[in-house]
């Protein structure tokens, strides 16, 4: 078959029109119709999302994704995503929702929409149960492992009293290793990192002591899907009201949801 150049251009120009109506259809309606919802979840980020011994994804994000699916009356298709690709997946409609420890900031708000927050995410001070750290002043004279240049390093520099022996390491792995080896009494890190450590090294008994920085998790929704966003908010607010979200946070993070922003 021979196509003239003009015909080819015309065909190309019409393609978006053909694809248009499908994409423009209300996403909530599509989900209700097909009874399938595709949700992006992390699989490398305990305790939010990781692969269990049975090779099934599990974690707080996975539980929230399943909760949303159940309330939507749709079968959940879990799609593993990582930090770098979760927003592109949403933009290109490979997934309907992102439940992947997603924080809200201005740049992201320009390209996608957010639900209300469903779980806390935070950087904090962790130490074994026997180590007493009740306030930042208690850090004086203690050794604290932290990753140089990370958010928690800056936070720690602001709040640590003089006399705190801060030991800075190159990356999270070295920081965690130093703490796990008992080289430092205290570690300042993210809750997900302490999750990995506690799972692999339960004998350490590392527990949450103090908060450095809060950055809660939101469900990401494609821009302009107001109906879907309304529905997700309704589900999350109901789960918050009946204590489901609180129970999930306690189960996975060993800490309450606290005061989640809307």
């Amino acid at each position, binding site marked *: 078959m021979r196509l003239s150049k003009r015909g080819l251009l015309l065909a190309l120009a019409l393609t978006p029109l053909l694809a248009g109506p499908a994409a423009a259809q209300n996403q909530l309606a599509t989900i209700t119709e097909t009874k399938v919802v595709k949700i992006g979840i992390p699989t490398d980020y305990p305790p939010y999302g990781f692969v269990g011994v049975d090779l099934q994804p599990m974690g707080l994000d996975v539980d929230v994704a399943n909760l949303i699916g159940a309330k939507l009356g749709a079968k959940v298709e879990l799609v593993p995503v990582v930090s770098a690709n979760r927003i592109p997946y949403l933009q290109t409609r490979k997934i309907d929702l992102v439940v992947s420890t997603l924080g809200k900031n201005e740049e992201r708000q320009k390209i996608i929409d957010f639900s209300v927050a469903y779980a806390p995410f935070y950087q904090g001070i962790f130490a074994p149960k026997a180590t007493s750290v009740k306030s930042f002043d208690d850090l004086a004279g203690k050794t604290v*492992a932290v990753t*140089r*240049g990370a958010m928690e*390093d800056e936070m720690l520099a602001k709040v640590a009293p003089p006399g705190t022996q801060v*030991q*800075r*390491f*190159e990356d999270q792995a*070295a920081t965690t*290793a*130093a703490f796990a*080896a*008992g*080289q430092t009494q205290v570690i300042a890190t993210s809750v997900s990192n302490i999750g990995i450590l506690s799972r692999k090294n339960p004998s350490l008994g590392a527990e949450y002591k103090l908060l450095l920085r809060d950055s809660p998790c939101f469900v990401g929704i494609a821009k302009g899907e107001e109906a879907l966003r309304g529905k997700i908010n309704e589900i999350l607010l109901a789960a918050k009201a009946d204590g489901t979200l609180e129970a999930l946070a306690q189960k996975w993070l060993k800490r309450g949801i606290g005061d989640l922003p809307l």
Partner: protein
Amino acid sequence: MQFDFWSILVQWPLLLRGAAWTIGLTATATLLGAGLAVAGAWARTQGPRPLGWLVGAYVEVIRNTPFIVQLFFIFFGLPQLGIRLSPGIAAVTAMTINLGAYAAEILRAGIEATPRGQIEAAESLALSRAQIFLHVVLPPALKTVWPAFVSQIVIVMLGSAVCGQISTEELSYATNLIQSRNFRAFEAYIVGTLGYLSLAILLRHLLNWAGPRFLFGR
């Protein structure tokens, strides 16, 4: 392109502290390492056979593994055996063990180059074995290999830069810290480079001056 060296130099207390740490680590490791090297070289040339083999194994292990792995093993690995060393002590230990192995080999070459007749002459004067080693064998051996010995110490001093990885607060740690605070990478590493360069030149001159004066004579 705008350079802002002031934002680095204003942190001079941190840099000075880092340089002091580097000097202290190097000085301690040099003294301990040199002692280890003399003992190692003696064991391999004149000591009992099994001890010589043991030292040989030590030299091979250290010379065929990266310094950073030795350092990480001491700092991150040993605590599992209940041996917990502070970053400073772990750094000195790693540097000493490392220098000891290389320097023992350098020194062994010097000892083997000592003419047999010199030792026989000492024996005929009824000197004890220890006297012979310390006064007849060692000084000329040191003199022969001194340039290589000094180079090895400078290498260990420069190698101490990786000790910042276990949060030893030496010069490269200070440089990295300043860089991660103000993101002035170019300026920070130029300052760090000049710091190491001047330390290395100073160290080389110091050792080249001190060796003939205190250890083996001209």
